């Protein structure tokens, strides 16, 4: 049985075709990255997988069930999301931010056990000192770290990350990458977008090159991230790759 299937996805916005016939089969526990130039449709594809956006054609199948037919709470137990930048529109403590990871499990009111789960993870991940701090005022690195920790609290099987390292300094980049490595060991599935090759090589087993909403190449990291493929992807002859 296939775990997660992205089946013949088409998506347009304002008559512009953004995703054109994307097909992917993702195994349980696999770490896959989507890589491509700006505007190639990476974020749109992630949002379709998360069912935030509904494609005009095609379907996302998880364990033989159409993701768009999942109840919201059931879906949130399967998928969690770490966006490029998490912004809270109102002041909230870091603890209150984290406890939102329990929303799929809560009927109306937060229980004692939910609080305990959050506190345990905070302690385990050494962020207990941030508990009462205003989440809005944390550094970008702390925010991303806390958001990643929320995926544990949400207990989801699949973690979808959209350029989580963009605004971070080296310290937090390393921290997040280490944590992602740990997540991999927990046999969770990771679907990510990074804008640097080092992170992909560090975290992913497989990479998909996306160009103008279509898959250019799909395969193991070392086979796909070659100079020839990247030159074709970016239409630029001077692609420079660190070895």
């Amino acid at each position, binding site marked *: 049985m296939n775990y997660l299937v992205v089946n013949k996805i088409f998506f347009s916005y304002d008559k512009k075709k953004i995703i054109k016939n994307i097909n992917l089969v993702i195994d349980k526990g696999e770490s896959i990255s989507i890589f491509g130039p700006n505007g190639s449709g990476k974020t749109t594809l992630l949002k379709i997988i998360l069912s*935030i956006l509904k494609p005009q054609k095609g379907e996302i199948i998880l364990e033989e069930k159409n993701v768009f037919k999942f109840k*919201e709470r059931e879906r949130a137990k399967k998928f*969690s*999301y770490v*966006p490029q930048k998490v912004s809270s*529109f109102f002041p909230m403590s870091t603890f*209150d931010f984290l406890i939102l990871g329990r*929303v799929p499990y809560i009927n109306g*009111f937060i229980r004692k056990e939910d609080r305990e789960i959050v506190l345990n993870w905070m302690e385990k991940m050494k962020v207990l000192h941030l508990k009462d701090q205003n989440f809005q005022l944390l550094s970008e690195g702390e925010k991303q770290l806390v958001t990643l920790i929320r995926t544990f609290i949400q207990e989801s099987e699949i973690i979808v990350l959209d350029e989580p390292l963009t605004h971070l300094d080296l310290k937090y980049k390393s921290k997040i990458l280490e944590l992602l490595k740990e997540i991999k060991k927990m046999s969770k599935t990771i679907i990510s977008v990074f804008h640097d090759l080092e992170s992909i090589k560090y975290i992913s087993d497989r990479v998909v090159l996306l160009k103008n909403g279509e898959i250019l190449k799909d395969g193991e990291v070392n086979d796909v991230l070659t100079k020839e493929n990247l030159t074709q992807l970016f239409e630029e002859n001077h692609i420079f790759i660190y070895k």
Partner: protein
Amino acid sequence: MKKRAFVLILIILSVLIFLISLSYGSKRYSILEIIEFLMNPKNGDELLLKIRLPRVLSSFLVGASLSIAGLLSQTLFLNPLADPFLFGISSGANFFVTLSLFLGLDMIFKFSLSFFSFLGALFSTIIILLISRIKGKITPLNLLLAGVALNYLLSSISSFLSIWGRDVLNKSVFWSLTGFSTINFEKINLLLIIFIPCLIFSILINIQLDAFSLGEDEAHSLGVNTKLMKTVTLFLIALLTGISVYVSGIIGFIGLMVPNILRTIFGLKHIELIPLSLLLGGLLLMISDLIGRMILFPAEIPVSIITSFLGAPFFLYLLFKKRVY
């Protein structure tokens, strides 16, 4: 500790202002007389029972309704500047009431004005949503702009209708400015019938509202049915605003001030923010009404003038405090 002290002060002040509001007026009563009256209201003074008690109760309830409507609007529209007044929801209610007076529909059934008031508030909220959706997703800024534009448009049409039909002018000016001075227990019962279910519903969706504070995509990925949540919240805002406008005319800024003050102290949790909005909103409007009765005694200043006087500087403060919207 700070939070507990705040709640305690809020409760003590509410009781105190409630008693003072009852005692103050053309005929004054001692606090002792007021307490005696409250122990056994049926044997009390007609003035206290039929005029002052309904007035004070309704100002508390309207303040609570508007504050909760403000809180829900801010969360729904992800905008700390959202307020039923600024977003044109109150003007929608006012417009429908004026229109029904103009067309002579105000006497179709007993509470027909309240029904039109609700319809008008709903009309406005839906219009804002539609306007903001013309270009795809709703951003906080285009919603605020849509609301302000709608507010002006509906207010000007209401004024036009009032001037055109002179009879309407008398009725609507009387209706919108008298505020709490024409209140009776029938209106309070109606207010309670709307307010209590709205309060319970808001509390039931507290955790979804919390998640919604991070934006629609985040709420979705946390397991919130965002479409259903938005619809329910829209109805709650329309009901709470509609009934408030029906009871007391347009009162601005309470819905803006109260949730913003509370959020800075209590943060995110709607399970705390909702009951606290009830309390602080009720208290603020009771105080505003009391001030309105005191300043030019024996003349009365409409409560909306007092809240605008307090709220407009607060609005500017919010604008300058958080520069980007």
